[in-house]
């Protein structure tokens, strides 16, 4: 392994600009003559809009325009859409209500935009926004997903009676019912997967500029997938043809899913910039982010596990109500269905599974993919059930898992997925060794001596990443293909630009992608740069989410590199008067097989461009190749997290005493970056399990609307983590990569809640397990869920 090749912990190339304050985030950009945009937002969760009076605001100092939903409709700007079609049990399509970027006749959640003010300065825009008078007819609202479909609940969209978007199912109901009918033991749980606010530290932002001469628009935005944004804004919103719209996502300060989606504010910025013929800049403040960023999770679930006399799991039955919020965000429909129920088999060989999912509208912010997207919810259901079942049966939770693990591959689950490779025993065993499981009893006794409770909890998770192949996702309703693209441009002097459809917003692609190229071509890593995030520079690509940039994005680069190598060999052949087939390429050197004749990388690249050694009839000049890569399967990262906690029963304070993660991500390009992804994912999962929870009151007001009321994990809330890996290479892509971005967030909530419930001896500890919740449980104040 070279110092900068595959497998090396190369320090990140992008860090220089971030540690010196010279990054380039959207809000850092300023365009000459720009106006600042500020939105007038609904204070009501559900209301008709009777009148919007902008006259007073228009006269305020510095105001260039005040635009409303009626203006937007007059200009025939289309609404936002959800791009994944789900079909209900009865064969009817999902019921998608209209989502105009500015509401014209009805608001459906607090924070819905009703007007936008454009002014010379942000302060002027904000002041004028207060002078916009909106006459609302307040309607009753519903925020609880479990009540949304009830008789008499307020109706949010006319197209969706009873607020029901779809009632969908997956699996074999009859076989599952039969498994339960003959079960020796049934474990039942009611689970609420708490609603989360993604809270990337960089708030969303958009700057739009209109070029009159060319009738073209440019949008700088905080996007994880600029090409998809351009496609949606062009084809569905109808803003401008794709070739007249450039989307640039520069440095992006974290996404975690929330920056995949196409949001109203970027549509409005583009439309407004063209209307007023000046650049328009909008930067969300944090309070706005809480109200308008797509939230995550929010499931209400009843789940049951059937177990036979041999302690083998024979069936799993799940009913989930998924809160979609007030509008269907870009990928919202897929999260509680194909990204959720398809993973309900976990790491286990379960013969029969049946899942039903009801998706409902409520008067809350839209809910869509957040780190893990459906898979954390599935893992929580499975790993809580398995842990509780083991406890009820008096079995060691590790051994009960082991007994039910999938052991041979490929393994077809009853819920679509074909697991291709894995070794679940190996990761469980390694994690148990690392946490010193066999001495847990001693540590527990020690804690008890000090009046503390100690618990240990497992989570042996699996996820599906890559989110591909395109044909497969298409058959499940996806409106897009989920391949990835790459172009490798070799310059005459031998330096290389990689143009990728992936987008980096913390993942370190500028380093890992360069490592791949350095390794493959034997060139110094400094001579490779990675270009991403600009639709004018980079060919169409699908962006970064679902832990797909390694498995799919880098595989596209590999394919393009194959072509580069093949052509470079031909050039070398002409240079050395040998056939291209007789050229060997190794460590940046081209050698005629069986001779000591060789030429170096830089010679070949120069000759590719000066084209003196071959004619145009023999070979095209230049050295630039592209590839589109569509995988043959999802990838299946899996592993084992074990959490050990100590609880003070007097205060309910939970301290995470130990955390071990052993993940199987297949082959790894940069272990330092992979570990960092695991750390960050665990922190978000710990946040979900112990700290975070978005909460609306019954009037639809978000009561956790700032960092003062929404508990973000701080440094002191977390321990240092022990992170390790096992490796079974992924057979479905050339690098054997599975993906690592979401695993931590997927595995960790179940591990932590399993540890806390183990310590307090009650299963009913809802998330977030705050000190008051844990205190009540520790005092025996919460009834056992199993009762």
């Amino acid at each position, binding site marked *: 392994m070279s110092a900068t090749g595959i497998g090396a*912990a190369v*320090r*990140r190339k*992008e*860090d*220089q*600009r*971030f*540690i*010196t*304050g*010279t*990054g*380039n*985030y959207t*809000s*850092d950009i*300023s365009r000459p003559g720009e106006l600042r945009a500020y939105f007038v937002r609904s204070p009501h969760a559900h209301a008709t809009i009777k009148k919007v009076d902008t006259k007073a605001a228009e006269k305020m100092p510095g105001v260039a325009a005040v635009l409303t939903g009626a203006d937007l409709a007059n200009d025939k700007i289309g609404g936002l859409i959800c791009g994944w079609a789900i079909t209900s049990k009865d064969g009817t399509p999902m019921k998608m209500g209209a989502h105009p970027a500015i509401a014209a006749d009805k608001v459906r959640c607090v924070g819905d935009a009703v007007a936008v003010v454009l002014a010379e300065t942000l*302060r002027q825009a904000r002041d004028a926004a207060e002078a916009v008078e909106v006459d609302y007819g307040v309607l009753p609202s519903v925020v609880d997903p479990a009540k949304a479909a009830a008789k008499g609940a307020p109706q949010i969209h006319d197209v969706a009676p009873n607020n029901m978007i779809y009632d969908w199912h997956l699996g074999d109901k009859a076989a599952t019912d039969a498994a339960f009918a003959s079960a020796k033991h049934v474990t039942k749980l009611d689970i609420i997967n708490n609603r989360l606010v993604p*809270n*990337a*530290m*960089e*708030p969303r932002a958009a700057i739009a500029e209109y070029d009159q001469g060319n009738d073209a628009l440019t949008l700088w935005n905080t996007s994880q997938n600029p090409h998809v944004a351009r496609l949606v804004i062009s084809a569905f919103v109808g803003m401008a043809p794709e070739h007249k719209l450039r989307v640039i996502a520069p*440095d*992006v*300060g*974290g996404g*975690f899913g929330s920056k995949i989606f196409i949001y109203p504010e970027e549509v409005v910025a583009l439309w407004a910039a063209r209307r007023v013929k000046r650049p328009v800049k909008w930067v969300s*403040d*944090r*309070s706005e982010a809480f109200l308008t960023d797509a939230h995550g999770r929010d499931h209400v679930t009843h789940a049951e596990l059937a177990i036979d006399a041999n302690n083998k799991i024979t069936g799993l039955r799940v009913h989930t109500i998924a809160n979609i919020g007030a509008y269907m965000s870009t990928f919202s429909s897929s999260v509680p269905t194909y990204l959720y129920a398809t993973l309900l088999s976990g790491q286990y060989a379960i013969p029969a599974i049946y899942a039903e999912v009801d998706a409902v509208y409520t008067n809350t912010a839209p809910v869509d993919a957040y780190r893990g997207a459906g898979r954390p919810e599935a893992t929580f259901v499975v790993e809580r059930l398995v842990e509780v079942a083991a406890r009820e049966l008096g079995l060691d939770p590790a051994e009960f898992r082991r007994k039910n693990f999938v052991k041979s591959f490929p393994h077809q689950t009853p819920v679509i997925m074909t697991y291709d490779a894995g070794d679940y025993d190996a990761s469980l065993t390694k994690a148990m060794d690392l946490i010193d499981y066999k001495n847990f009893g001693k540590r527990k006794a020690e804690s008890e001596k000090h009046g503390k409770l100690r618990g240990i909890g497992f989570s042996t998770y699996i996820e599906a990443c890559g989110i591909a192949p395109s044909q497969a996702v298409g058959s499940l309703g996806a409106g897009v293909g989920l391949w990835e693209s790459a172009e490798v441009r070799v310059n005459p002097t031998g330096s290389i630009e990689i143009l990728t459809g992936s987008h980096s*917003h*913390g*993942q*370190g692609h500028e380093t890992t992608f360069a490592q791949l190229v350095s390794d493959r071509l034997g060139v110094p890593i400094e001579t490779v740069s990675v270009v991403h995030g600009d639709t004018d520079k980079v060919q169409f690509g699908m962006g970064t989410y679902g832990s797909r940039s390694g498995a799919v994005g880098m595989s596209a680069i590999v394919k393009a590199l194959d072509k580069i190598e093949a052509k470079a060999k031909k050039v070398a052949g002409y240079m050395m008067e040998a056939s291209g087939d007789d050229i060997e390429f190794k460590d940046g050197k081209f050698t005629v097989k069986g001779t000591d004749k060789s030429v170096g990388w830089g010679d070949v690249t120069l000759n590719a461009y000066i084209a003196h050694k071959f004619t145009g009839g023999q070979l095209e000049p230049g050295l630039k190749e592209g590839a589109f890569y569509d995988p043959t399967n999802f990838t299946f990262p899996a592993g084992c997290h074990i959490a050990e906690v100590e609880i003070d029963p007097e205060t309910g304070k939970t301290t995470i005493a130990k955390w071990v993660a052993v993940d199987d991500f297949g082959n790894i390009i940069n272990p*330092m*970056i992979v*570990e*960092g*992804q695991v*750390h*960050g*994912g*665990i*922190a*978000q999962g710990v946040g979900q399990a112990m700290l975070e929870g978005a909460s609306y009151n019954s009037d639809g007001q978000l009561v956790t609307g*700032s*960092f*003062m009321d929404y508990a*973000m*994990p*701080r*440094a*002191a809330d*977390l321990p*240092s*983590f022990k992170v390790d890996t096992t490796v079974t290479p992924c057979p479905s892509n050339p690098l054997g990569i599975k993906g690592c971005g979401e695993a*931590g967030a997927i595995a960790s909530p179940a591990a932590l809640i399993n540890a806390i419930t183990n310590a307090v001896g009650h299963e009913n500890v809802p998330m977030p397990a705050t000190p008051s919740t844990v205190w009540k449980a520790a005092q025996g104040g919460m009834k056992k869920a199993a009762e």
Partner: protein
Amino acid sequence: MSNVTVTVNGKSHTVDVAPETLLVELIREKLRLTGTHVGCDTSQCGACVVHVDGVAVKSCTMLAMTADGASVTTIEGLANGSALHPMQEAFREHHGLQCGFCTPGMIMSAVDIVNRKGSDLDEHTIRDELEGNICRCTGYHNIVKAVAAGAKAMKGGAKPARAAE
């Protein structure tokens, strides 16, 4: 509007500001030093931390006018020319950043912690002292390692040792 004179990263600027202008707005919008970030509107996140007369301050909580006559250091002024500050070096070496958005504030806070608490910092102290800085990406594990290493390097005036793992 009134004039404020501040020395930022060693350079004196006299700027006309409205009374309600925040220090962070002066830095980002008037001086176009965009390394100092804004991550919240409730003074919780610490993305905006700069040093005012050598002490860490959340620049979103301070009016520009109250910085009149003060000396301000932002992330852009921390390195000595092309030689990185040891704390910057330590963040890179220990992978203490991912998206980089919290990083300028983290590094400025970390330097301030060392200034106040010395260079021998245990994990517990570092975690407690980072109370006012939120990172959503890293889970803090590597930030804690970076701060400890950066602190040592600040004392020794040496480059932080290469991380063992």
